[in-house]
């Protein structure tokens, strides 16, 4: 069970809506194993079907995490018209080089959060993408911010 503060869920959904018609993407930082902050990252593809996170913004976030003793808790993005489930593209791109599914995924500790705007209210679900390209859903338990710290 993945505890995520309501404020972070609301922020990811708000971001997904604001970036319509394109997919939105970002990262959630963790501290001591808890999700603490959500950070929007520019989708340089600016596409309804694809995302690619701004590399320099990612570097800045990674440097900040290093300074603050934080970790990459989650990688999130939206699907504007399809379900909140990793697409074949999402799975391929979780590996380096993309599609080399037999390796360890690029971010083995991070969970992939999908926000789907296909339904109202939007769906938010979380998945680990494992070696071999296996998709494992991790149920989300929405908590109050105070509980998560």
């Amino acid at each position, binding site marked *: 069970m993945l505890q995520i503060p309501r404020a972070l869920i609301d922020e990811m959904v708000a971001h997904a809506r604001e970036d319509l018609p394109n997919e939105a993407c970002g990262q959630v930082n963790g501290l001591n194993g808890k999700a603490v902050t959500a950070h929007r990252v520019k989708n340089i593809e600016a596409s309804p079907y694809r995302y690619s996170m701004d590399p*320099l913004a990612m*570097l800045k976030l990674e440097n900040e995490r290093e300074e603050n003793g934080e970790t990459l808790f989650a990688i999130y993005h939206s699907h504007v018209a399809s379900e909140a489930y990793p697409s074949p593209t999402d799975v391929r791109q979780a590996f380096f080089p993309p599609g080399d599914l037999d390796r360890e995924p690029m971010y083995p500790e991070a969970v992939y959060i999908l926000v789907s705007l296909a339904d109202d209210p939007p769906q938010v679900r979380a998945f680990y993408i494992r070696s071999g390209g296996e998709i494992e859903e991790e149920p989300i338990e929405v908590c109050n911010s105070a509980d998560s710290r």
Partner: protein
Amino acid sequence: MAIKVQVTSVIQRAVDGQRELDAEGGTVAELIDNIDMKYPGFRGQVADDSGELHRFVNIYINDEDIRYLSGKDTIVSDGDIISFLPALAGGSAACIG
């Protein structure tokens, strides 16, 4: 001439887990060769067998993407910071190749 190099994520694994290191060279390609001498296998992380840079790796000189400069022939100078950043991508598209 020592150039400061930053790497993240999976590329970090190719240089013994370091986030920052120094390397030498007058161009991006020379810098990659220099790092590969110290950390065999590094080149394969960022380029294919013919030396062409992988499109799923972003290389920046300071804040500029070398794709918009001269690619692997981009000149590097003392004081520059070169970053090797794997792409983080995906999306609902069935396949983006």
